[in-house]
């Protein structure tokens, strides 16, 4: 069993990106991603788990035993650094063998394991080369090899794909996920790329400024973001947001934005209870909006086309809604001219409303 | 070993050596400076406490002041000459050319030689009868006796400049190469003359580097000993006796150890003040100030 849990961990002193009251429980064999912008503390968390940093308060448990005071060597974790951190003066073979040499394994066994790992990662032909002669992707695979070779309890990845070019990144995403499934060890993965997080993780911990905003599976995070930040961070193209106010008129409830109102009478109870005041933000994803040349329902909103962005397999229509750009996903053969008037309709079940002051989700 | 203890352990040998070989002797000699002590009489007379008498003696002695003057004259002359020559050399060498590094390294050789060896050899070179400089000067119709009260300091400056101008050149060159090229290119587009470029781009940017070079060289020149010792031994008649040499004489020729310690402390204070300024400039990371100097440029 290799669970990793952080309990109310705080690290402030000497940390560029501090972490506060961080609590996280990663299940055995689970792939959890720490997702957040730069400075959110994801690397700090990884380094705390690895033992490269000392925590100020709280506890870290690896495999149900307290790891606070253990050195990195004693924690049985492996880490892949963003810069790969391969030993420049040692060959690929020696780099891979390093963890095993540290544990003073016999040479024959080391040799066997190195060749095995090199095989899995398809770097056997590179064993005698020096890191300086490797490409980015090759270096990364050596770094991964060095991590998996001793079958640690926990894998830590610190933005491993960031330094690769776009095509390679897409390829490696799948490779890494597959690898993790095959090896089957608990993994903590840090990145700022939400696509990586969505495609690879069992669960995502969205982080901001040293705190967890939400920790759930990708689909929950996508469909039920708990607050404005999470909603805005996940999803490409990102969710559209419109400031609005809740008001009641003639016995009905409306969310009133400058240029339109939406009838929310059926939700008025919830809105009134959970909202701190009447200022709210309406959120809707580009894929949950339909566009027509005429109003479809009485909730359809008239907008003006700003620009059409064809993307090959689909297109994004940018609309001018009350002075702000509103993006909608449209099929690839959709035609529109700048300045044209079109009507958009929101899929009601997919609408999100956020409290403007606290940012928390009301619906 | 636990990391907390390790980090102190690693610096322990360094600190111990420095404490013993620097702090301890300094404290000892500070104490000594308050005594009327002479090493020669170590076994005979007991050293008597004289308070700050040694300091008063040293500071009121006109000989001390004339030595300071000699030193000042030397330092000012030497540093100025070295600065000018160094600057010219740096300007000559900014542009890349084949063999540039070899040339620079070759020019730096004088700096690497032992001052004492250079001093000894220049006695041969400067000699009136068989020295090579005498020969060269005679080609221009100039006779030159170097070991005279008026000529001796300039002669020492000559040797010192030969040794240390390359040092100035190196630092100034580093400063010049660190000026971002695009500043010059923007100025070229605006059709600025080379003088304007120099005045508004080059000078502000390299000022900190120049300060470092000047300070360092001044401190070093002030400490000058080896060269003077062997080249002139303070002569003729004290005309080239710098303060370091004077200290040596007091402490090791006349063996007025107490007084010597006092003078040593006076020198120390001066040097500490100078080096404080120097270190402040150094640790201000001059290379990074280039970024902020961009805003000063108005071409």
């Amino acid at each position: 069993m290799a669970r990793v849990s952080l309990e109310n961990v705080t690290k402030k002193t000497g940390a560029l990106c501090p972490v506060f009251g961080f609590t996280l429980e990663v299940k055995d064999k689970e792939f959890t991603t720490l997702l957040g912008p730069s400075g959110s503390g994801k690397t700090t968390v990884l380094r705390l788990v690895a033992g490269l940093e000392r925590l100020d308060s709280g506890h870290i448990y690896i495999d149900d035993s307290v790891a606070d005071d253990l050195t990195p060597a004693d924690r049985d974790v492996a880490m892949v650094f963003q810069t790969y951190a391969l030993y420049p003066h040692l060959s690929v073979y020696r780099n891979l063998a390093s963890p095993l040499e540290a544990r003073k394994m016999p040479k024959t066994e080391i040799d066997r394991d190195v060749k095995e790992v090199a095989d899995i990662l398809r770097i056997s032909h590179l064993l005698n080369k020096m890191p300086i002669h490797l490409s980015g992707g090759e270096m990364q695979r050596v770094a991964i090899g060095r991590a998996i070779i001793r079958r640690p309890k926990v894998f830590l990845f610190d933005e491993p794909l960031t330094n690769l070019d776009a095509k390679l990144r897409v390829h490696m995403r799948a490779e890494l996920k597959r690898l993790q499934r095959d090896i089957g060890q608990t993994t903590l993965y840090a990145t700022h790329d939400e696509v990586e997080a969505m495609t690879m993780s069992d669960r995502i911990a969205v982080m901001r400024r040293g705190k967890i905003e939400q920790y759930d599976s990708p689909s929950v995070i996508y469909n039920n973001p708990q607050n404005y930040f999470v909603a805005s961070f996940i999803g490409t193209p990102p969710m559209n947001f419109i400031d609005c106010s809740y008001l009641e008129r003639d016995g009905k409830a409306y969310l009133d934005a400058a240029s339109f109102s939406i009838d929310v009478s059926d939700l008025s109870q919830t809105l009134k209870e959970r909202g701190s005041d009447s200022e709210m933000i309406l959120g809707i994803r580009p894929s949950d909006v339909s566009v027509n040349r005429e109003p479809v329902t009485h909730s359809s909103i008239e907008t003006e086309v700003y620009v059409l962005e064809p993307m090959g397999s689909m297109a994004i229509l940018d609309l001018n809604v009350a002075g702000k750009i509103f993006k909608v996903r449209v099929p690839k053969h959709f035609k529109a001219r700048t300045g044209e008037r079109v009507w958009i309709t929101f899929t009601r079940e997919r609408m999100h409303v956020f409290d403007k002051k606290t940012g928390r989700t009301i619906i | 070993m636990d990391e907390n203890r390790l980090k102190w352990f690693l610096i322990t040998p360094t600190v111990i050596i420095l404490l013993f070989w620097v702090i301890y002797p300094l404290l000892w000699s500070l104490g000594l400076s308050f005594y009327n002590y002479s090493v020669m009489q170590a076994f005979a007379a007991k050293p008597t406490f004289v308070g700050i008498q040694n300091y008063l003696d040293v500071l009121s002695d006109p000989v001390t002041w004339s030595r300071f003057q000699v030193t000042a004259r030397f330092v000012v002359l030497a540093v100025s000459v070295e600065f000018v020559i160094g600057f010219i050399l740096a300007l000559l060498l900014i542009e890349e050319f084949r063999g540039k590094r070899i040339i620079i390294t070759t020019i730096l050789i004088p700096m690497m030689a032992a001052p004492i060896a250079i001093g000894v050899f220049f006695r041969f070179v400067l000699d009136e009868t068989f020295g090579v400089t005498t020969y060269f000067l005679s080609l221009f119709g100039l006779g030159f006796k170097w070991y005279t009260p008026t000529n001796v300091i300039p002669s020492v400056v000559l040797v010192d400049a030969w040794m240390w101008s390359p040092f100035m050149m190196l630092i100034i060159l580093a400063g010049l190469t660190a000026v971002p090229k695009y500043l010059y290119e923007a100025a070229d587009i605006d059709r600025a003359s080379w003088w304007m470029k120099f005045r508004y781009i080059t000078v502000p940017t390299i000022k900190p580097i120049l300060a470092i070079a000047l300070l360092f060289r001044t401190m070093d020149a002030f400490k000058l000993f080896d060269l003077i010792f062997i080249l002139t031994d303070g002569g003729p008649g004290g005309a080239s006796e710098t303060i370091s040499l004077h200290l040596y004489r007091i402490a090791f020729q006349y063996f007025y150890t107490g007084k010597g310690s006092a003078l040593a402390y006076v020198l120390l204070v001066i040097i500490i003040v100078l080096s404080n300024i120097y270190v402040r400039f150094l640790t201000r990371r001059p290379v990074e100030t280039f970024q902020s100097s961009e805003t000063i440029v108005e071409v």
Partner: protein
Amino acid sequence: MRRSNKKTILRTIRFVMIALATIVFVFPIYWMFVTSFKTRVDMFAMPPKWVFTPTLENYMDVFLKVHYTIYGLTPTPTDFDRFLFNSVLISLSSVALSVGFGTLAAYSFSRFELKGKDTWLFFILSTRMLPPIAVLVPMFLMYRTLGLMNTHIGLILLYTMFNLSFAVWMMKGFIDEIPKELEEAAMIDGYSRIRAFIKATLPQALTGMAATAVFCLITSWNEFAFAYVTSGFESRTVPVSLARIRGESGINWGLITASEVIYLMPVIIFTFLMQRYLLRGVTFGTIKK
């Protein structure tokens, strides 16, 4: 057309001036070199002789002196080899110590948070700024009391002290440039901090250590004042032996120049070896080219 003409003229002037400068700075060394191969007659010739038949007699004089004994003219070794040996021993030992300890301290300063780190660093740097003369007096007394006069170990420790501050500063600069992820990866692999340092960081620091060592070597090699004051016959270094001509009227210039050339050779070789690091060494590693 006119523009490129002007440029060529400027370029030529530049090169001429550079050539002249190089000649000026190289000439005395060249002259020293040349003089050491001249006979006594040749070296005093005025106007100076540019072309002459070289002789090795000066170099032989450096190592052997010929004097009359009952057996006639017999060569006996001079003491130069002892002085040379002293110089080599003392310089190498002090450099080994200072670079060794200095690197350890530099590693600590570079990677760890230490209370009062800046003060420590400043203190270490300031020891370099001390005028040797000011420290000479107390050092002399201390050495007399401790019985360190005229000992190898005395000078070794002294030079170590001189070079330590420089070594710490230079090595800190070098180590700062080595990414700490390297030793962190080693620690995660299973190595202790010290072993991680040896396996991951040290190999990267070797060039820096070599450069630092060379600069420290040159400093120790050339040191004069302290050696003069504290050494007797047994621990005398070459610079001191050179200075003992002071006050002599009949100086054997051939002997002197030959000794100096011998003593200068390693320095010149090392300077060329360490070309890349010259700027760094001269400015304590803060300005890097």
